[in-house]
């Protein structure tokens, strides 16, 4: 069966202070139907950029410059190579207006975006359109799938969706505009908007960040219920290790724009399973410390990204080879691959 989203050798750039910065470096992943996928990594690892760029949500700025992206079996970058010439290297150069490439991606995805594929954005308070009250926003999301829906039937569906995301006082919320919602409410409205069209693939960007503990569990339950009842597949972008463990079957760990470990969640996110990339081990150690306390684990700070392994500046085991060139993924177990020659040869 074709994957819902397949990404190969993806290179992406952003305009920084000193020219172009490479944000993604030959990133690859494959989200299969029925197997929810978690993209794990800290801020700046490129996880949000990857998801947004694949769906053409980065128009008009330097974005993807090389690689291939298939969404629901459609190769969205096919034939676009002529638009851009990319020169890799320490200071990457791009020959033409990359924005045109991204706009072309957005055009190709327009028929499925918002229906078959939906996105719950990272920062819903600013991402929700400010001009319409919640009732109208949700109504539009439902009509994207079912244009004949109207009147009382539509209203009933809108109310039902707000209840499904654990909103109380539904009548009051329906009349509110996005800027009048609290952070947690905006997060839930954004999630309802993304779930309502009944997508096959839902890209949820940090859905649990900034929520208090009780609300976080409810949002996790809603996502899990949607996966079970609606048959949707989740691409979860998060630094919440426990959320990834609870919701996803497959995991890729992104560090400095490269996938450094990938495999089944049950293996990658289990601290007891070795071998592990040192970066994954650090993420898991931080999570364990928050749950159980104890001595503070050694957690080196983020340093500058060099040409080699993105973690080499922080890695206690780094050798000259790690700093010189980025190691490739090597098989640690069936389906489990780790990009660290010190751990897996």
């Amino acid at each position, binding site marked *: 069966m074709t994957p819902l989203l397949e990404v190969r050798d993806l290179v992406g750039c952003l305009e920084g202070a000193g020219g172009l910065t490479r944000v993604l470096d030959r990133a690859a992943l494959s989200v299969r139907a029925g197997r929810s996928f978690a993209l794990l990594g800290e801020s700046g690892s490129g996880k949000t950029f990857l998801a947004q760029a694949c769906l053409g949500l980065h128009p008009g700025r330097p974005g993807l410059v090389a690689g291939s992206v298939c969404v629901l079996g459609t190769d969205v970058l096919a034939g676009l190579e002529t638009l851009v010439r990319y020169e890799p290297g320490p200071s990457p150069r791009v020959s033409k207006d990359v924005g045109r490439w991204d706009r072309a991606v957005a055009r190709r995805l327009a028929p499925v975006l918002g229906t078959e594929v939906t996105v719950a954005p990272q920062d819903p308070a600013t991402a929700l359109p400010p001009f319409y009250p919640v009732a109208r926003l949700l109504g539009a999301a439902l009509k994207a799938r079912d244009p004949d829906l109207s009147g009382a039937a539509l209203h009933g569906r809108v109310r039902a969706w707000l209840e499904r995301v654990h909103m109380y006082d539904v009548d009051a919320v329906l009349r509110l505009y996005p800027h009048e919602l*609290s952070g947690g409410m905006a997060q839930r409205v954004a999630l309802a908007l993304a779930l309502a069209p009944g997508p096959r693939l839902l890209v949820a960007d940090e859905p649990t960040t900034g929520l208090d503990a009780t*609300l976080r569990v409810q949002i996790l*339950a809603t996502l899990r219920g949607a996966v079970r009842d609606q048959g949707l597949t989740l691409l979860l972008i998060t630094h919440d290790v426990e959320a990834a463990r609870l919701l996803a079957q497959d995991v890729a760990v992104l560090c400095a724009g490269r996938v450094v470990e990938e495999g089944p969640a049950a293996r990658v996110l289990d601290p007891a399973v070795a071998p592990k990339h040192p970066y994954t081990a650090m993420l898991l*150690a*931080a999570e364990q410390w928050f*749950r159980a*306390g104890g001595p503070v684990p050694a957690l080196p700070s983020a340093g500058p990204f060099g040409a080699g392994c993105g973690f080499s500046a922080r890695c206690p085991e780094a050798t000259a080879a790690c700093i010189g060139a980025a190691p490739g993924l090597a098989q640690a177990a069936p389906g489990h691959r780790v990009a660290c020659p010190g751990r897996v040869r």
Partner: protein
Amino acid sequence: MSGPLVQVDGLCKSFRPPGFLAGGSRTPALRGVGFTLGGRELVGLVGESGSGKTTLGRCLLGLTAFDRGTVRVAGFRVDRLGRARRAFAREAQMVFQNPYAALDPAFRVRTILGEAVRVHGDRDEPTARQVERLADLVQLPRGRLDEFPGRLSGGERRRVAFARALATRPRFVVADEPVAGIDPPVQVQLLELVRRIHAARPLCLVLISHDLGAVRALAERVLVLYRGRLVEDAPATAFFGGRALHPYSRELLRSAYDAPEILAGPVGGVRRPAGRDQGCPYRHRCGRATGSGGAPCATIRPALDPCGPGHRVACHRWEEGEQP
């Protein structure tokens, strides 16, 4: 000076509903909060969004005017500061929730910290030296002092926010969500830093957080707010050691530590408590209140009463929490 550093009695605060010409009733944020803090305590203030944590923190520092009650901090009546505001600011400082908004983007870090030092700091020592000492204290590389806040990482911004608050050598600091929204490994480093600063200075620190992991890592005492009321005040060892007695505290702990178990069963929605009445505000979400009848949960609001050494709880049926 003897007596507690912070004394809060019957603190009430309500907000007018937002919107132009909006009428209707005011929304209460704090409803009769009272507690005292000693000079070197490290206290975690927890509760869900909207429980009043930030409002309480701002009231403690005189940044938000309150309706009723008294707040005394380091010998100052916070609601009657007047000309003493600057002297009070030297004693009590806030680390704001959003360091993106709290640091002026037009000034370099050195200037931001230098201003705090010049206004409030030691006059005998050159400002530049004090700024560098502050940077060392929060483990910010000195080279980063010449950056603008926009060029700093999230963790570095939090360090600058802490340094700015500590510039006046305050005795009381409220840190509002100091680690929210940053990566867990960086959170661990920051929490360790806060612990070291607290150990090194005569300082009472209130850590406002919805993240129980952060509170568990640092706090010696936990205050739990629920809908504007203090429902539990417990030593951290008891709170995290299985002796959290209020059902709401238990719900928070369960949500934070037993998410897989909760998800295995049915998850109910949040039910909004009914209007203003005299009953326990938590009873609509409480498993204990709906159990056997006879308890006064629906008619009498429980007071915050002692239930153990240094431990108070506002629940008629807290003894049931004693059983494992």
